[in-house]
């Protein structure tokens, strides 16, 4: 199959601007995008730089943006992605490029993954032999354990796109793996760590990450598990993130009181009743909303008919969390 490859080229050493180069490749229908890149390098341009290792979707080294989607080059067949005879290959987005298709994994991925301390830290005396864990205790985390750290979930992340400091779904999936490992002794410390600014609470839970994971590990669901576990343990703020706790508590108390959300109360209490600067910041929005009838009066919030039953459910659910 003859295919045109449009490949991102950039070499900071020669001072030229990034550009696309076009190559013609001829490969069997079963060939992958990686086969195409290899043929280009071996037969047409030995200066083309890209990462590749396992060639079977197990190492995550060849995460690339192929025809505008984050994919693994070694498992994606050309025939599956080719559009009008063309395959466009770029580095993944939002990341410093070192050369051509080789990007800076340290700043993009490793730094963030290391920040959640993705190793198990047992507490108490070491056992005589191995740490023994029953299979069923690890059943849940098995899925996250198979993460290959390709970074494609981060590549698709809507928050990382605008905020490079957000820890991202890849690192939070690693955090999940440790949080739910029964051998770990740093459970609460770990939840506190990921609850700091830039951590789990900065996620919009938009579920983009699920669609980008090549292994179907559903990183957004893993992140929800971490968040729900933090709530169960009463850890919502880290040490520097008090708004998270206030927002959650206000939302919860509102639903507990009236059965539904008191939006005005939520806005005020999330800022903090004594946080004058924070409350002042709300003023322009409130002033714009009042004449339009879009600023519901806080605290004067009518109860829904089912409010009592809902309160009972919440009380019971909270008791079973403890």
């Amino acid at each position: 199959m003859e295919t045109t490859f449009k490949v991102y080229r950039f070499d900071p050493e020669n001072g030229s601007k990034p550009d696309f180069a076009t190559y013609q490749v001829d490969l069997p229908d079963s060939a992958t995008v990686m086969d195409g890149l290899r043929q280009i390098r071996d037969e047409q341009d030995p200066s083309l730089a890209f990462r590749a290792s396992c060639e079977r979707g197990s190492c995550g080294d060849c995460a690339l943006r192929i025809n505008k989607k984050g994919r693994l080059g070694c498992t994606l067949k050309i025939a599956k992605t080719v559009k009008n005879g063309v395959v466009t290959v770029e580095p993944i987005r939002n990341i410093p490029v070192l050369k051509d298709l080789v990007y800076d994994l340290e700043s993009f991925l490793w730094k963030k993954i290391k920040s959640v301390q993705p190793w198990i830290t047992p507490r108490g005396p070491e056992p005589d032999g191995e740490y023994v864990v029953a299979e069923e205790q690890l059943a849940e985390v098995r899925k996250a354990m198979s993460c290959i750290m390709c970074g494609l979930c981060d590549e698709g992340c809507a928050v990382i796109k605008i905020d490079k400091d957000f820890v991202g779904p890849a690192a939070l999936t690693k955090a999940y793996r440790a949080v739910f490992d029964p051998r770990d002794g740093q459970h609460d410390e770990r939840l506190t760590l990921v609850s700091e600014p830039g951590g789990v609470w900065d996620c919009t839970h938009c579920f983009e990450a699920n669609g980008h994971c090549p292994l179907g590990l559903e990183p957004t669901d893993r992140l929800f598990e971490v968040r729900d576990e933090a709530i169960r343990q009463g850890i919502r703020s880290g040490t520097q993130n008090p708004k998270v706790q206030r927002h959650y508590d206000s939302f919860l108390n509102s639903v507990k009181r009236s059965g539904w959300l008191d939006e005005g109360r939520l806005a005020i209490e999330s800022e903090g009743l004594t946080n004058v600067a924070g409350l002042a910041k709300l003023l322009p929005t409130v002033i714009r909303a009042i004449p339009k009838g879009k600023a519901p009066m806080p605290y004067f919030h009518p109860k829904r008919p089912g409010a009592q039953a809902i309160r009972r459910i919440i009380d019971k659910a909270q008791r079973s969390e403890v």
Partner: protein
Amino acid sequence: MKYAFYPGCVSRGACPELYPASVKVTEKLGIEIEEVTDVGCTGAGVLSRDLSDPINARTLAKVESMGLSSLMTICSTCQGVFTQANHRFKNEPEYRQKINDEYLAEEGLEYKGTVEVKHLLWVLMEDYGVENLKPYIKRKLTGLKVAPFYGCYIRRPTSIIAPKGLSGRKTYLEELLDVLGAESVDSSGKSKCCGFPILTVNEENSMRMVSDHTGDAKTKGADCMVTPCPLCHLNLDANQPTAEKRAGTQIGLPIIHLPQLLGLAFGFDEKEMELQRHIVSTESVSRQLEVSIRS
């Protein structure tokens, strides 16, 4: 078919224009709805699922006790939370049983797992039929350039929201706009997050999302944006002035609720659709529609 109607919190709070617009439009189309009042907030993806799942199971049980099997929402966030919870209830009978036993039995309720939850957009496209809307269109939206903005929860997670056989859900807004006579403007943010969920925790990022999405739609020539989600509406409309200020730019893109746009096409006027309540002026949309009618 009759639907139980779940209006959600925001259509009775900070977006009070959404509730009457939804009721008027469904009435006009002859879609029978009965509001389920004795129920709580879905948790909006904020409350832990330990708490929100029992509350949502109770709502679905109430729908069953009304003798109905469909619940209509008018909010993508309510829709998403319900769809995900209902997926667990339907696919994990033991979990459903546990919630029934621990939380619902006391009230004499039991959720049997028979309810389908459908956003108004899905009701129109899947049950009512887009062709059947045509006789109600009194004012074609010809010439109006509209950027669809779905929001997250009515699009993802794909495996649950738009599984095989329902993948058309990804383009319902565009199909609907086509029938209404409007032109769809494809903006980069149409299926992205509006930023509302992190408005409190990271306002800077949230506002950046608003200015990026509205700014891109405006640059691409949109006269307005339409959304099926009142939370997206809140961020994109009510917070647009703040986002403009942060980005140091003027955008001024009117954001229209889906039922409002339908209502305008069905011949309701701007006042009946309560467009005057919006923070970003919708006058440019009205002017555009007047031009369309005259021509």
